[in-house]
């Protein structure tokens, strides 16, 4: 036995109800299993009138924290129904702990005061928070743009080794997952489309469909979403952890702007890496569609002929141009959420979640805007 000094058994409870008096005696160690076993019964006995209560601890050789809690609870229960409680023969060193307890403080609510403000105050606060959020987003966009311009003027300021490392992690390492998802998406679309289109005898046009869908929409969107999930979240977690560790504060006090130091290189990574990944994704998606059509017995030459006639350079450009914006926005959102991280372990998790959610949201909204612009321009 490590705690306490005696190696006796867990305590048992004996109750005697005499003439107008209740006597509770504990025999053995008052440790947590003993207390757990007799807590409910002991309290019920004390609460049941009539008469004063005596708690006899002559045979208690150890009284742990749980035992102490039980004795205090019994005392409170007796007091509740107006009866006196006498504690007998508790060993002096436990008695001292029992006497030291401040009863009044055990009953108070004990939480800090957070006064309820009513709905008008809450609405005002929410509105002001939202306004501040927009303000900080605008500032961030401005700061990043200024940073990029400043860097363009003095390219040597870019810490190339670090930039390369980030680009490698979010670009090169993303190739397998981008390939897998794009190839499978191409295959699935081809499969699903070829069944109904065969009924009309136009299943050769499945290639056109897959190619246009991948090149104009799915390639850029899926790459952007993968980038948000893999790298936007990583940026937020990395910068968020730096914020929690006061590394961001250290940058600021050294006179370095955290946005220029942390966000600008990452946004540049997004700008550089996402378009390449997007082109790769387009190619993989088309390859997936072609693979399915080959399996369905179409000759390769016919498929290529279809591709040549349907996909124009400007279709590829339409997707390619979007991907620059997607990359910059997703990387920027990740960095912004990282820099907005609050205190504590859960704050980093919140920042990461927000980075991915906001990143994907922005990608979809921007894609819709591009759709309108391209339609108007007849692009």
């Amino acid at each position, binding site marked *: 036995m*490590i705690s*306490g000094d005696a190696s006796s058994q867990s305590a048992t409870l004996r109750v005697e109800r005499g003439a107008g008096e209740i006597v509770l005696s504990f025999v053995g160690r008052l440790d947590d299993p003993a207390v757990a076993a007799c807590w409910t019964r002991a309290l019920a006995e004390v609460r049941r009138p009539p008469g004063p209560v005596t708690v006899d601890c002559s045979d208690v050789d150890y009284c*742990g924290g*749980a035992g102490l*809690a039980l004795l205090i609870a019994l005392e409170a229960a007796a007091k509740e129904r107006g009866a006196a409680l006498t504690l007998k023969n508790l060993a002096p060193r436990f008695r001292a702990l029992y006497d030291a307890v401040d009863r009044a403080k055990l009953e108070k609510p004990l939480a800090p005061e957070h006064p309820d403000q009513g709905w008008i105050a809450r609405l005002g606060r929410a509105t002001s928070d939202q306004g501040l959020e927009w303000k900080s987003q605008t500032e961030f966009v401005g700061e990043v743009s200024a940073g990029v311009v400043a860097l363009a003027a003095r390219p040597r300021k870019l810490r190339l080794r670090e930039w390369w490392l980030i680009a490698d992690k979010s670009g090169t390492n993303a190739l397998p997952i981008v390939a897998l998802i794009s190839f499978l998406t191409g295959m699935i679309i081809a499969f699903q489309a070829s069944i109904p289109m065969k009924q009309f005898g136009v299943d050769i046009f499945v290639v056109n469909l897959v190619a246009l869908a991948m090149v104009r929409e799915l390639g850029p969107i899926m790459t952007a979403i993968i980038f948000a999930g893999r790298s936007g979240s990583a940026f937020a977690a990395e910068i968020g952890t730096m914020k929690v560790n006061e590394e961001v504060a250290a940058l600021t006090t050294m006179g370095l702007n955290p946005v220029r130091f942390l966000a600008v290189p990452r946004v540049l990574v997004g700008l550089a890496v996402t378009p390449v990944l997007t082109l790769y994704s387009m190619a993989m998606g088309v390859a997936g569609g072609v693979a399915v059509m080959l399996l369905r017995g179409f000759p390769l030459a016919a498929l290529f002929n279809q591709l040549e006639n349907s996909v124009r350079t400007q279709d590829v450009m339409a997707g390619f141009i979007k991907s620059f914006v997607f990359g910059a926005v997703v990387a920027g959102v990740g960095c912004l959420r990282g820099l907005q991280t609050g205190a504590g372990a859960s704050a980093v998790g919140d920042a990461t979640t927000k980075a991915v959610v906001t990143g994907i949201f922005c990608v979809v909204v921007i894609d819709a805007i591009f759709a309108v612009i391209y339609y108007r321009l007849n692009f």
Partner: protein
Amino acid sequence: MPPNDQIIIEVDGLTVGYGERVVLREVNFRVRRGEVFMILGGSGSGKSTLLKNMIGLYPAVAGRILIGGRDIVSATGTARQEILRAFGVMYQGGALFGSLSLEGNVSLPLEEWTRLPAGARTLLARLKLQQVGLGDFAGYLPSEISGGMQKRAAVARAMALDPGILFLDEPSAGLDPITSAELDDLIRSLSRNLGITFVVATHEMASVYAIGDRVIMLENGSIVAEGDPVQLRDHPPNDYVRAFFRREPQKARAA
């Protein structure tokens, strides 16, 4: 040597290393029941590693660590859980769970390890917080109280299951002298009133004199001195110990 039943922790030939680097070399010592035992040493001397080995966080290369007669190095499964239950640990930064109130932090081990009803757990958690002087703050979140309070709350959480031993890692790190002295008082009173054995890793000389019954001093992974703190100060067995106790810079230090 005191009789064997008074030895509560026994460290025997403990050797620890990371890869090629040996951090602790053949460390041997005993801790007696009820004493405040302090592990002293400069930064990088291996005291944190020693403490983390004693609480079973790091694996040892060789040696035994008997806690209440049972070896924590080789124990696995339920045997290991049993040993872990016998002691509490206060980590350097407090390591309170930020999402739980102080009361929630203290009652978490009670929920997992005892069958006490909810009312009993709450009452017990408040009693423990009262014992460390935080009776008014049970409902506060760790982020709403000061660093010294967080450490005291961490002591309350470590005591939740009435352990016989408490391990404290640098209790005075980052605290002002007054708060640090209050924490020392708390350790003294818990040791006297509840008979808890303390194992404290520190380099704060003031608390060594204030609360230490016995100290060992580590340098480069070996014990260079062992004994009563005041005696070590007055009769240092070697230069390193003298320099450490007198706060002298040591020019000829090898590392």
